[in-house]
């Protein structure tokens, strides 16, 4: 077999996107995937299937609680969970075959099996039939992603104590569902099963939910989710989880208080760790940091020539879109082009209802950095479209430099926040100011007008609210 220009280990949103770009640039490209299907965690057991369930259950909530207000009468709205799960599986299958055909059209050779680096420029793949195949390549990109972090006192058993992977596949809603960790995964899956009838309790070690997002909006989200029926225990440290007869009992401390939680299922969603071991990277001499992430320079090159790493396996937020951008930039560098990433313009999103989206600095971060800043806010209840949609919850909030007016951060809480945040990301990417956004004509009536109004409120000239 001919030598490849680039071989990518891992076919998640980092790896497969890097492969497409490499194919586009005319590089002879290969991709190695240990699982049966391409697409990685995101496509198979992460972003995509969770969004399928979140959307389905959101529709259910509409049918059950909102439809009547619109004059739509749905008698006895109920869920066929089996069918809901089948639809989710179909969504994943559609995406799987999409990625597979993209590999073909971009002339990317796919190897199914566990890839191991045996030396710089050499990768051996253990194929499904037990044979191994040795592949030579000029460049290797490690894009192996991450795995859910396990708690030592609450090891995953796949049945009662589960990770997000299993929590997406329950065949019936657990009567009592305990979630450890109030980050994106815990809040999203907590929402799914809460909507489907589970009694959901979320425990969080920190005094707040949704760490990394603006505190003001996180608090608003917590209030909203509480109203939807989810119970939160903050500043609560879980000490042990015991399994007895398929049921779990978790003990935790909250201040001086001892708390006990019984549950049919326990989701541990306390973060993810880089999937960096067992790849032969250590043997090849690749350096790691203290949290087992692979060390790379600004062009994603490891300390070993010809070996690169991107995505969750290196430093930075563990986000699919961050991995994709890195994959593109990395391949473009290999091809002698000039790939860049602006880490200040990568948004994070939690797909609850309302959705929480944020990019750039939070207000607390601006304070910490001692930046002189202005805040602009606009509530959706003052937006005509939000009123027509009956989606009044949430606000848009901008953090802008007091002197230059440059947008430093944008935060949105709204049913459609994940889509609305993109505009702010674009403006930030171009180093834009709140005035730039405020002077851009927005169509009426749209939710995006609220984004413009919040930008106008930075200089206290929003139109549909009293500017404070």
């Amino acid at each position, binding site marked *: 077999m001919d030598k490849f220009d680039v071989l990518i280990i891992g076919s998640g949103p980092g790896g497969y996107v890097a492969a497409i770009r490499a194919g586009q640039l005319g590089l002879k490209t290969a991709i190695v995937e240990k699982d049966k299907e391409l697409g990685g965690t995101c496509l198979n057991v992460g972003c995509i299937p969770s969004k399928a369930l979140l959307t389905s259950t959101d529709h259910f909530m509409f049918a059950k609680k909102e439809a009547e207000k619109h004059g739509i009468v749905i008698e006895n709205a109920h869920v066929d969970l089996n069918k809901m799960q089948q639809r989710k599986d179909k969504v994943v299958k559609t995406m799987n075959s999409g990625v597979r055909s993209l590999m073909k059209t971009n002339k990317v050779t796919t190897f199914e099996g566990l890839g191991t680096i045996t030396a710089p420029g050499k990768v051996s793949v253990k194929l499904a039939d037990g044979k191994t195949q040795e592949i030579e390549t000029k460049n290797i990109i490690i894009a192996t992603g991450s795995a859910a972090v396990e708690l030592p006192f609450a090891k995953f058993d796949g049945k009662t104590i589960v990770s997000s992977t299993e929590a997406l596949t329950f065949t019936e809603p657990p009567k009592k569902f305990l979630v450890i960790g109030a980050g994106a995964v815990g809040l999203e899956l907590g929402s799914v099963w809460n909507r489907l009838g589970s009694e959901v309790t979320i425990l969080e070690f920190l005094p707040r939910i949704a760490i990394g997002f603006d505190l003001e909006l996180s608090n608003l989200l917590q209030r909203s989710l509480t109203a939807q029926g989810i119970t939160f225990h903050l500043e609560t440290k879980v000490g042990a989880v015991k399994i007895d007869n398929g049921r779990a009992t978790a003990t935790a401390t909250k201040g001086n208080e001892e708390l006990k939680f019984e549950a049919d299922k326990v989701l541990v969603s306390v973060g993810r760790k880089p999937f960096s071991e067992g790849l032969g990277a250590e043997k090849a001499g690749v350096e790691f940091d203290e949290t087992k992430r692979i060390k790379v320079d600004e062009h994603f090159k490891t300390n070993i020539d010809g070996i690169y790493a991107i995505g969750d396996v290196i430093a930075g937020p563990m986000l699919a879109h961050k991995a994709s951008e890195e994959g593109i930039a990395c391949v473009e560098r290999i091809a002698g082009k000039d790939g860049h990433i602006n880490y200040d313009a990568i948004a994070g999103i939690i797909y609850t209802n309302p959705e929480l989206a944020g990019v750039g600095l939070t207000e607390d971060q601006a304070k910490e950095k001692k930046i002189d800043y202005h805040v602009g806010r606009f509530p959706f209840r003052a937006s005509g479209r939000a009123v027509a949609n009956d989606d009044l919850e949430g606000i848009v909030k901008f953090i802008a430099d007091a002197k230059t007016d440059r947008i430093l951060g944008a935060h949105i809480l709204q049913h459609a926040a994940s889509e609305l945040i993109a505009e702010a990301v674009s403006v930030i990417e*171009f180093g834009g100011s709140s005035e730039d956004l405020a002077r851009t004509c927005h169509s009426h009536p749209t939710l995006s007008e609220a984004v413009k109004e919040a930008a106008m409120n930075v200089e206290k000239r929003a139109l549909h609210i009293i500017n404070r």
Partner: protein
Amino acid sequence: MSVEVKIPAVGESITSGIVSVWHKKSGDFVNAGDALFTLETDKVSTEIAAETSGVLDAIVPEGQEVKIGEVVATIDDSKKPIETAPEKTSVGDAVSVSGKPTASPTKEKPADAKTLSPAVRRIVDEEHLQPEKISGTGKSGRLTKADALAAAQNRGAAEEKVEPPSRGYGGPSIAEDRSAEGGNRRGEQSADGRFVRKKMSPLRRKIAAQLVMAQHTAAILTTFNECDMSAVQELRTKSQDAFTKKNGVKLGFMSFFIKASVEALRAVPVVNGRIEDEDFIQNNFYDIGVAVGTERGLVVPIVRDADKKSFADLERDIADYATKAREGKLKIEDLTGGTFTISNGGVYGSLLSTPILNPPQSGILGMHKIMPRPVAVDGKVEARPMMYLALSYDHRAIDGREAVTFLIKVKECIEDPKKLPLDF
């Protein structure tokens, strides 16, 4: 071989000008006939074209005063136009095993005024900035609001460095005044938006210097009179249709005043002369300047041999000049060599004013707004369309009696146009 680009002689009495804008940059390939730069003189601004094709090397910076005949650039005609190499991406070759990027960072592009962000557009507009001269810190070298704000703030200081204000006519200069206030000029520039400082155009600066020079050289005095416009108005109304049909141009007031001035100049020739050092020069021709206001300032194109021209010719000349002035197409020769000037402040509504001489001329007639006013006619009060007339003159050459006589002659010709050689 290098060919020198010299400042051409653009007209009599013009010895210097200012290279206001380079239309080509050093290193540019220019074709013969391409406009190289704009030369501004106190009379007019002209584009100077390349006489040869080749690569330009500009020697003189924008804003510098240059003398006629001075070399401001060279053109190397041995060089061919530089081909811009098309961007090539040969992927196979570009793959570097070591992974070192072979491409250099994206070159900064000059900011295009059309693609400025909304906030930058506003600041550039309000602060009169030149976006192509601001360096951008945004994506691919784009200008951010911060860049524009910084440029607006720094401009004051930068300009001060470029051109220290020259000392005027005694007294402390403006710059000294300001530094005495504590040197916070920068903050004064635009921080609160209460005033905006901007550089005067070279043409404006020249006009200013010329006016002050006139005030300081001649002994300017103004005499006034008034004239009843009834007769001229009546004549115009009666003849307008036939005149327009015949000549393709309207019969205005100006031709009457030009003709009246010629008659008055014939009667009082000293007004049609000028002082040069210790001599007085008497002109025996009648080239009358007609002041025209334009966006860039006042210009005074000259109607040649006004004594020999018909009313129709005069009106046509004036109309042509007005069009040229609006379009900025007046040539140096259109503006030089007048013997007397007429200025009509009436078009802006002025009732009375003292015109200032157009050196080295000795007289200037000021026309004003026609207003119906009560006047005594045959012992009765009547409303008549009246115009005040003003003649400013150089008292060094012209006596008061001569000046008053001149103005009365003009008045008489206007009040009784039959005294003029009416040829329509």
